[in-house]
């Protein structure tokens, strides 16, 4: 079976959880013998024919234009980064549209700010500038561009089924379905309702609904999300399947504790944005601090509410016990997990939420919002309404006061999530593919 897959993120192209979810899922699908032609928002018109599990790291690429492909094949690359740079896979997925200009400009600036003589401060100013230049204000334009390209993939590639992840790629999936006549599966990792904590952008909402209506099958990452799809998008329940996510972390040897603080360490890890409930975390921290001034709270990540949280945390006089890390790369995320005792996910609305699973894999005791999909797949974690800050604080206090219990629950959680594998999710997806195909063939003989 061969799948034409559209997604906006795939490592190293990552902004949020979508990229890591696609990575784990595709790797496992390949292991089941399913072939995937992956289309990303790249600068060049390419797709990635993935055949073996290892291909998710190698990312072999094919240019649709044969002349360009010949050029590409004959080009010598020193490493994968250089090759991906050639194709135009940037680490900022939303930037692919500015194409040459921004790329060239950024390169020119980089040359400037990577000189030896320049100070660290100046370098950071430049980096901030380039990050701002590559903003996402014209995301709809980029979606248009991506959608237009889908036509050629649909006509020129050979596949049995189309799989599109999240609204940014739904229009591309729909177009490909119309042109190829092959069935479409749309995968919901998050809806606008989750991101906005309410109705959100009506344009996005309508694109999401159109994608789900047009699709032959809808995969939701949780029961929680399926419920959301039914109530806010009025999609036929028969069309919806639930496939929970799994997670990928380093081997167990690299997951042993490596503390930063001698005292209890409580972690928030995720984008500092409304959806993730960082303000509830701060409120909880402020309550716990009164009882346990020795506890440290780490807010890891970046986001549009970072400054607000910084100021609020200072106003609450939490001393040097509420700290901010800024953006962390993958290695740093694991370092911070190794240093933590308690993980709190106070999301207002979390379709799934892979990070608690990662935290639990590190033996960190998790407190997760009831308004999350991940709450459906784990038992050895505390599940609390995101707004119930008192209970959240009481729970944290209880864990601080009973460190043995905290450790025990952490280890149980670790054992539990060690049984969660992408292979199981992939197997469910394979079954969905099969049934979609057979239903489709029945109705289109």
């Amino acid at each position, binding site marked *: 079976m061969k799948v034409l897959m559209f997604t906006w993120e795939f490592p190293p192209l990552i902004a949020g959880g979508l990229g890591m979810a696609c990575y784990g899922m595709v790797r496992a699908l390949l292991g089941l013998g399913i072939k995937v032609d992956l289309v990303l928002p790249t600068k060049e018109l390419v797709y990635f024919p993935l055949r073996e599990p290892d291909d998710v790291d190698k990312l072999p690429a094919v240019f649709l234009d044969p002349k360009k492909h010949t050029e590409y094949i004959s080009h010598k690359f020193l490493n994968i980064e250089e090759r991906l740079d050639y194709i135009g896979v940037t680490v900022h997925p939303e930037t692919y549209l500015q194409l040459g200009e921004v790329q060239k400009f950024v390169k020119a600036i980089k040359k400037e700010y990577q000189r030896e003589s320049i100070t660290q401060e100046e370098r950071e100013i430049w980096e901030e500038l380039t990050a701002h230049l590559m903003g996402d204000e014209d995301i709809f334009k980029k979606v248009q561009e991506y959608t237009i390209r889908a036509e050629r993939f649909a006509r020129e590639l050979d596949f049995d089924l189309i799989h599109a992840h999240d609204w940014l790629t739904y229009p591309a999936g729909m177009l490909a379905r119309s042109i190829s006549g092959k069935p479409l599966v749309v995968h919901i990792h998050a809806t606008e309702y989750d991101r906005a904590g309410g109705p959100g952008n009506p344009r996005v909402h309508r694109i999401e609904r159109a994608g789900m209506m047009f699709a032959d099958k809808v995969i939701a990452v949780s029961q929680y999300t399926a419920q959301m799809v039914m109530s806010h998008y009025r999609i036929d329940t028969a069309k919806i399947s639930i496939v929970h996510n799994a997670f990928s972390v380093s081997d167990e040897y690299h997951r042993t504790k490596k503390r930063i603080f001698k005292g209890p360490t409580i972690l928030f890890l995720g984008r500092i944005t409304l959806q993730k409930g960082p303000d509830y975390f701060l409120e909880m921290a402020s309550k716990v601090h009164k009882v346990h001034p020795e506890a440290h709270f780490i807010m890891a990540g970046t986001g549009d509410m970072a400054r607000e949280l910084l100021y609020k945390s*200072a106003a609450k006089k939490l001393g*040097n016990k509420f700290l901010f890390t800024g953006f962390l790369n993958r290695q740093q995320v694991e370092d911070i997990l190794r240093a933590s005792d308690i993980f709190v996910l106070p999301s207002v609305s979390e379709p799934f939420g892979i990070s608690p699973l990662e935290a639990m894999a590190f033996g960190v005791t998790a407190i997760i919002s009831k308004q999350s999909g991940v709450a459906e797949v784990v038992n050895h974690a505390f599940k609390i309404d995101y707004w119930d800050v008192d209970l959240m604080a009481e729970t944290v206090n209880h864990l601080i006061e009973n460190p043995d219990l905290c450790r025990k629950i952490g280890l149980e959680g670790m054992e539990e999530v060690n049984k969660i594998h992408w292979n199981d999710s992939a197997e469910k997806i394979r079954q969905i593919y099969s049934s979609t195909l057979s239903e489709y063939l029945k109705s289109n003989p």
Partner: protein
Amino acid sequence: MLYVVFYFQVHQPYRLRHLNVLDIGKGVDYFDEHLNSQIMRKVTEKCYLPTNKLLLDLIHRYEGQFKVAFSLTGTAIEQMKAYSPEALDSFKELVDTGYVELLGETYYHSLAFLFDTNEFLDQVAMHRDLMKSEFGYYPETFRNTELIYQDSLSDLIYEIEGFHTILTEGVDRILQWRSPLYTYKNYAKTINLLLKYYQLADDIAFRFSDRDWPEYPLTVDKFVNWIDRLTLSEKEGRNLFLNLFMDYETFGEHQWAETGIFDFMQHFPEEILKRPHLGFANPKEAYKLANYQQEALSFPEPVSWADVERDLSAWLSNDMQRNAIETLYNLINLIRQKGDEKLLEIARKLSTSDHFYYMCTKYFQDGDVHKYFSPYDSPDQAYIYYMNALADLEERLQ
């Protein structure tokens, strides 16, 4: 007579590295040695060496008639020793002339006076020892960090052997109709006060090269005429003191050599000394020259020389600043109790007022002086690095 009283502030903080939470507990040095040495070298070349040489020439030329005062912080002297010993030597050469007064202050240019009296007194004593060991000098005049002053400060300084005068800002809301040209007494009439004449001092320090300023360019002739006119309004032969207090880096660093600031300074004494009723004095001489009953002035609330508000808002107006400074002094208290000298030295370097100045959000958007002096992109970052340092310090203490 009207005496021009020059006092120059010489200070450099220990700027922090961009500390991350993941650096905590790894024994990382908090201070950005590369940046600090770079700045010290730059200021030495642009300001300290050329200005010291100029002042030395002037002192020699007008032997006894031209004099200036300096306040050198401990953190500046430490960094001179480490990165530009020739700068320290040239200050010593100046002091050796006998016409340069050195003022007393907190070793770390800190806000300890506002938060921890014992720590404040210790830092003042440390600075006193430093002046003695480096220059063989016993300061008689005190200036608190950024000219911060209120009544209770004078009580503390009065208790310290040897100080008889304090410098502060000539704040309008305190002076009201009075002139900053007189020397005053503190509220308890136990100590003398000299007040900065901020209009004229800031003409040199801030406006000298400002082309939008109607008085641009500021010539020596014009400036001395303004000074001369001040004496007309004062009567009965009373000795007056025009207190021109400013950052030493005004010369060559804030105002570049190209602005003509050095030429200005070179010709200024000559023009003053041409006029028989004008001269120079050092702060410690003022009270002896006061040929009148000094009026007592009360400062119930703290004042400073910073920003237009001339209060504490440059260091203590937002939640980040308050949380940071309160956390620091709690920590200093714990370290003092434990008696860990090594950690105390680090904590004291973190007590330098500049760290809180960098966190100021008052004018940050407008790109004003706070931004000019800050080594960080934003007050938020300054706060994040600082709190990471305090978190690490507390871990080391346990």
